[in-house]
């Protein structure tokens, strides 16, 4: 069975350079095309210029918060798959990820996670979307 990630274009938005590189590497190993951005504003620029199949975005970042970025992305293209990641934040535990779901994230993943967990979550999104007749 073909890897659901192979050939997909994935945009990773993460302000931590080490985590950004690790996430990008995970998707590259799955033969996806990877675009990267270090903040929400840059992420939106990349999104508008490349029409990725999947956006992985951190929720707490400088410049433009991830929730705001997520809402802009979903407003522009509701069918795009969005996976929100976060280590928590300035609200009670899990609330940022709950908020991400509420504003349109298709899946959420709490930090820390292994690369395999990230790519498995992305694969599950594409498999569900394909089963639903989307993406």
């Amino acid at each position, binding site marked *: 069975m073909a890897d659901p990630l192979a050939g997909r274009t994935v945009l990773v938005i993460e302000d931590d350079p080490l*985590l950004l590189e*690790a996430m990008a590497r995970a998707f590259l190993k799955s033969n996806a095309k990877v675009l990267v951005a270090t903040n929400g504003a840059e992420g939106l620029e990349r999104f508008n210029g490349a029409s990725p199949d999947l956006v992985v975005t951190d929720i707490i970042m400088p410049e433009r918060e991830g929730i705001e970025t997520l809402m802009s992305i979903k407003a522009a293209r509701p069918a795009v798959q969005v996976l929100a990641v976060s*280590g*928590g934040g300035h609200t009670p535990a899990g609330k940022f990820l709950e908020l991400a779901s509420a504003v349109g994230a298709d899946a959420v993943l709490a*930090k*820390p996670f*292994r*690369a395999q967990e990230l790519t498995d979550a992305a694969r599950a999104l594409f498999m569900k979307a394909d089963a639903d007749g989307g993406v």
Partner: protein
Amino acid sequence: MAASELAGIRHELNNRLARIIALAEAVMDLVPSGDRAGAAADALIMQTEETAEFVRRALDPCS
């Protein structure tokens, strides 16, 4: 300590733990399968995940 301060600490801790896992996985990518360095990196990842669980249990009730 205020709840928002604890939440900020948890966020920073989880990001730091995520970096440790990312670095350990980078090591695993560099060494041959079965190498002792790979086993050590895997053990480091498991210890980090246990620490993340401890952080979650220790800080979540206070948030």
